[in-house]
C-alpha cells in the first residue's frame, strides 16, 4: 500500500520527468515568448485530463493483455527517454571522456537493482530524494528572481499552429507519464495525484518563467539545454559560483525515479519475461538511440505525438473506478 504522500511525490516527479532535454527546449523552440501562456494553458488542460483519468480504473485494465502491452510500450518508451537524457546530461557536462556504454550501463544496473527491490523501496527512495529536489527548486527560483528582466517576456507574437503544438506538448509531457503510476496502484487517491501534478507543473512553470525572464526567448533558443544553462547563472549567497553540476541533481532525481517506476511497471506487466525483455530493450536503446544522435533527435521532434497516442488510448479506456 502506497501512502497518499508518496503518491503525490511520485506524481510530482513523473509530471516533470519529460522536461529535461526535451520538453523545455521543445516548447521554447515552438512558441518563444508565447510558451509561458501555452504551458500555463497546457498545464490546466492536463489537470482536467488527469482529473478525468483518475476517475477510471487503470489498475484492472492494465492487468488485461491489451493493457499490459500498452503499459509495457509506454514504460519502455519513457525508460528509453530517461536513459538518453541521463547519457546526454552525463556525457555533455560531467563525464566528457567516458564512453556512453560506461555511463548508461551503471544506470541500467541501478534501475535493475531498484526494480528487484520493489515498489516500497522506490517509494522510500523518492521520499528521501524529493526533499533535495524541492529544496533546490526553491533555492533556484529565489536566486533567479532578481535577475529576471520583464522586458524579455515581450513581444508575444501569436502563431496559432505553434501555440497549439506547444500547449498540446505541455499537456502530453505532464500527464502521460502519470498513467504509469495509475497502472501500478490499485486504490490511488485522486486528490494526492492531482496535488503532485499541480506542484510538478508549477515547478516547471517557474523554471520556464526564469529561463525566458533571464535569457529571453532568442538566447534560450540558442542553447540546446537552456534548463542546464540556467543553473550556470546561479550564484549562492553572492560567492558560491558555478554550482550547476550540483544543482542539476534535480533532473537526475526526476530521471532516476521515473526510470525506476517505469521499469517496475514493465516488470509487473511482463512477469517472468522481464529479464529477456530488459536485455533486448537495453541493446535496442543503446544501439539505436543512445549511440545514435539522429535517432535521438527523431524522438526529440516526435515524442509529443507518440505519447499523445498513449494518452488518447488511456482516455478512451472504459473501465470506471469502483466507488
Amino acid at each position, binding site marked *: 500500500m502506497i501512502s497518499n504522500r508518496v503518491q503525490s511525490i511520485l506524481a510530482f516527479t513523473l509530471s516533470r520527468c519529460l522536461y529535461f532535454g526535451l520538453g523545455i527546449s521543445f516548447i521554447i523552440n515552438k512558441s518563444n515568448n508565447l510558451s509561458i501562456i501555452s504551458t500555463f494553458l497546457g498545464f490546466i488542460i492536463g489537470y482536467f485530463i488527469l482529473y478525468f483519468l483518475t476517475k477510471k480504473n487503470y489498475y484492472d485494465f492494465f492487468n488485461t493483455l491489451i493493457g499490459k502491452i500498452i503499459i509495457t510500450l509506454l514504460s519502455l518508451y519513457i525508460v528509453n527517454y530517461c536513459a538518453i537524457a541521463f547519457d546526454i546530461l552525463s556525457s555533455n557536462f560531467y563525464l566528457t571522456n567516458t564512453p556512453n556504454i560506461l*555511463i548508461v550501463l551503471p544506470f541500467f544496473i541501478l534501475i535493475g537493482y531498484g526494480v528487484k527491490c520493489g515498489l516500497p523501496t522506490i517509494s522510500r527512495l523518492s521520499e528521501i530524494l524529493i526533499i533535495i529536489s524541492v529544496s533546490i527548486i526553491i533555492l533556484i527560483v529565489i536566486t533567479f528572481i532578481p535577475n529576471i528582466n520583464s522586458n524579455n517576456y515581450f513581444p508575444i507574437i501569436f502563431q496559432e499552429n505553434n501555440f497549439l503544438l506547444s500547449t498540446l506538448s505541455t499537456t502530453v509531457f505532464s500527464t502521460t507519464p502519470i498513467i504509469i503510476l495509475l497502472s501500478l496502484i490499485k486504490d490511488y487517491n485522486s486528490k494526492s495525484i492531482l496535488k503532485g501534478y499541480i506542484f510538478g507543473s508549477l515547478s516547471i512553470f517557474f523554471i520556464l518563467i526564469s529561463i525566458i525572464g533571464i535569457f529571453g526567448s532568442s*538566447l534560450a533558443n*540558442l542553447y540546446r539545454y537552456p534548463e542546464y544553462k540556467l543553473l550556470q547563472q546561479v550564484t549562492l549567497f553572492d560567492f558560491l559560483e558555478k554550482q550547476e553540476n550540483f544543482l542539476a541533481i534535480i533532473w537526475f532525481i526526476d530521471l532516476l525515479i521515473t526510470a525506476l517506476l517505469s521499469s517496475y511497471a514493465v516488470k509487473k506487466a511482463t512477469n517472468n519475461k522481464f529479464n529477456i525483455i530488459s536485455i533486448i530493450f537495453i541493446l535496442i536503446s543503446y544501439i539505436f538511440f543512445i549511440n545514435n544522435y539522429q535517432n535521438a533527435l527523431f524522438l526529440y521532434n516526435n515524442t509529443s505525438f507518440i505519447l499523445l497516442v498513449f494518452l488518447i488510448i488511456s482516455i478512451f479506456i472504459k473501465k470506471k473506478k469502483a466507488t
Partner: protein
Amino acid sequence: MKKLLLIILIILLTGCYDYKELNDIAIISGIGISKENDEYRVIYEVINTEANKESNNDIKKYNVEAQDKNLSNAISKANEALAKQPYFEQIKVLLITKDVNILDISDYIFRNEKFNTSFYLALCDDIDEIFDYTSVNEPNNSIAINNLLKKINYDKITNLFDFNVDNLMQGYDIYLPYIVIDKELALKTIGIFDNNSFKRYLTNEEYRIFKYLNKVKEVPIINNNDSIKIYSSKLNYDIKDSNVTIKYDAKASINYLTKQYNLRNQNTYQDLNNLFKDTIYNEISTFINNLQKDNIDILGITKLYNTKYYKNKLDIKDIKLDYEINVDIDKAGTAFKEVK
C-alpha cells in the same frame, strides 16, 4: 553478488574514468583572441597550480599561444601546446582586439561543451602586453580585469558573453570595456560597436557620463568648479508612440564648493538641485544625441522600443528622445560652510 554490483557502480558512477588530478589540468583563467595577417592568434592565460601561494618568487601564471587561419585549429594548437589537459570552466574574461569579428568566434565557443560561457568580453590593443604584465596587486590578470569590471558595474548577467552575442545576433549594438596598461592594469574607457563592427571608444567625458548612467557611484559632476557626486540613481525609459522619455533620477551629495552657500537653509539645496539638474540634462542629452547621430545605442533603448512596437521597428536615429532629469542633493557632508 550485491557487493560486486556495488563496487562496479561506485567505480563507474563516481567518474573514475574521467578522473584527473588538479596538477594534471591546466586551468585557463582568460583567453585572448586577436587577428594577425588574416590569422587568428589565441593566447591562454593559465594558472600555475604548482606555484606556492606564499612564495613571491614562484610564477603564478603562464601564457600559451597558437595561431591559425581557422579559430578551431588555433585553439586545438594552443591545447596541444599545453602540457596538461585544458580546463575552460574557470574563464573569467575573453580579451579581443577590435578587428576580431565577435560573431565569427562565438559559434565555436557556444558549441563547445567544455566552455562555460559565463565570462565577460573585453577589448584591448595588444593581448601580449596585457597577459604578459604582472601586477603587484593581483598576479592573475584575468581575475584583475574581472575586478576592474565590477568597479563600473559591468559584472551584470546581461553583460556576459552569451548575452552580448545574443544582442549582436538580433542586430543590436553592444559595448565592451577597454583594458590598457597604464602603469597598472586599467580600465580606460569602453568601446562601442555598431552591431558587429567596432565603431569607436568613448571619450573621457563620455565615459564619465556613461559611468553615472550605469549607476557607478562617486562619479563627480562639475558645474563651474562646484561639484557633486551621485550615490544612488535610477534610469528608466517611458516609451509612448515614437517617443522615448529617458528618466534619470539621482540622489547626490556635495563634493566640493567654491562659492559661499548657506547650507543651513533648505532653499539652497533647491537652488543646487536646479543648477545640477541643468548640468546633468546637458551632459546626458549631448552624450545620447551624439551616439544617436552615429546610430549607436548602448543603453538598449532600441531593444526596448522594438520589443514594444515589434511591427514597426526603428533604429535609434529615428526614435525621438526626451529627457526627464531629477537631482536630489541631500547630503552636505560634514561641513555646513564652504571651507576657505
